[in-house]
């Protein structure tokens, strides 16, 4: 579904390359985690694959078509984005915010009946119906993340990209978010790519993991095979073996 070929990226000519010859392939319906140290290029890779950052060298293909050939609207129909936290200080209600996920399907001033029905269903599925009229800034961290997830789900796209979705969440909220993602993935066959730090959760919930180290893909494959003590120690530059920490 998504092919990344020989991707290189640097923020400025003076700085080191943040990505250095990254190639990978992501199949339809998989849950893929991208892990690595801070500064290893995880979020940059996600942004390049999502088309937000312009490519410098290399290719990103979505269904064989180069990503730069997609209009923003087409791209939004293919992929939904879950940011780390709420991006706004305006007092939108939960319903208004989730509704924005439907924008890529219909222009104009109003939303269709189908849009409203989809939003109602997702709010129900994610236990958010009672919050529908609450202002988003009044929500707790876990509730906010659920709202962001709801917006991505109603977007009806074939893939969801999540940029460190579990930051600032307690363990209960983390498990809840990942469980909902997994359920949605199983029911709708949606591909999900997430930048994550928690390797035990990656093992528990994800089909594949990509370990980045200094801008290169160090290892990729099923978590059970990739997340060995030796690999983890190398990628995360640990002096001790992970099991002894």
């Amino acid at each position, binding site marked *: 579904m998504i092919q990344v070929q020989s991707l290189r990226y640097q923020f400025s000519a003076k700085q080191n390359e943040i990505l250095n010859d990254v190639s990978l392939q992501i199949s339809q319906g998989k849950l893929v985690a991208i892990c690595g140290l801070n500064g290893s290029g995880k979020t940059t890779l996600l942004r390049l694959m999502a088309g937000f950052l312009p490519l410098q060298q290399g290719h990103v293909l979505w269904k064989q078509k180069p990503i730069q050939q997609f209009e*923003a609207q087409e791209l*939004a129909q293919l992929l*939904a984005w879950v940011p780390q936290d709420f991006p706004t200080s305006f*007092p939108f209600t939960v319903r208004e915010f989730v509704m924005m996920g439907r924008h890529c399907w219909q222009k104009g*001033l109003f939303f269709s009946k189908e849009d409203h029905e989809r939003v109602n269903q997702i709010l129900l599925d994610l236990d958010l119906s009672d919050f529908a009229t609450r202002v988003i800034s009044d929500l707790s961290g876990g509730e906010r993340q659920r709202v962001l997830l709801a917006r991505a789900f109603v977007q009806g796209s074939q893939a969801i990209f999540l940029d460190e979705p579990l930051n600032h969440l307690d363990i209960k909220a983390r498990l809840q978010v990942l469980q909902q993602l997994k359920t949605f993935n199983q029911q709708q066959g949606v591909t999900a790519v997430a930048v994550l730090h928690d390797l035990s959760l990656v093992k528990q919930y994800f089909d594949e993991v990509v370990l980045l180290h200094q801008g290169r893909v160090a290892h990729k494959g099923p978590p059970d095979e990739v997340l060995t003590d030796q690999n983890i120690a190398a990628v995360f530059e640990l002096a001790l073996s992970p099991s002894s920490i």
Partner: protein
Amino acid sequence: MRLNLLFKIIALFVFCVLAILAFAFLSEPVLSFADVAQADSLNHYIFWQLRLPRAVLAFAIGAALSVSGVSFQALLKNPLADPYILGVSGGAALGYVLGVVLGMPFFLLPVLAFVSSLACLILIYKLAQTDGVLSVTNLLLVGIVFNAFSFALILLINSVAHFGQAQQILYLLLGSLDPLPWSRLLLILVFLIFGFCFLWLRAKEMNILSLGDEDAFHLGVNVQREKILFFTVTSLLVGASVSLCGLIGFVGLIVPHLARLLIGADHRLVLPTSALLGGSLLLFCEFLAAHLIGFETLNTRLPVGAVTALIGAPLFVILLKRQVRS
């Protein structure tokens, strides 16, 4: 729920019509229906040719400034943005003043104000960004610097202008509403209504752009194109307002906040509500300007820009405090 909101907007609209009429009738000296109905009388002339055009102009400019404020706040993701504070009005004034001194025909002055406000907006936007991130503090600081700079340039131009031009420039800096002939007023109304409708029809995009570039992109909005469209139309509104009434500050800042308190954050509702509230607010300020220091006794009136600043500046401080706290 929706009906409730619609009812609020209709009630506000009725209130605005009443406010315009109240302004036209109740300014000193108070007119009665009988006075106005009598054709060829002095009061008939005062009502139709002075009071009503002034009221309509005040309302239209208040609405245009508020709508510009809404647009800037959404696009810059910053609830403290406003054409005056950002320095965009100052930029428009600079273009206008340059046109006055160069002796350009009056119909070219708004065009010049528009072009220079758009140029300033783009410059301020670029200057306030660091590594692609637009911070509240940077934006406000760049706005302050820009305002100071354009004021200095205006004063410089003013010093070489002859007496008549200098008077015109002074009025522009103070912000004042002088009644226009109906033909010109209607032309401007059509222009402002077009600007408003354009923004309103894109209110959904405005909602999404207020979440920031990255979110907007992933929700299917062509961020660059939309921003250019929004900035252009908003600069048109600011340019038109400034070339008609000079620098009237704080209306574009305060009114969107009031609208959001009343109706929520959805720009499909915030835009019409702000237009109506902003129109009434400037009308009220103009009424105060005419009556606060006693027109009868001193034979003078306060420029409306002074009244909006007197009311707006303390409110700005309150909003800034709230913003910093959150």
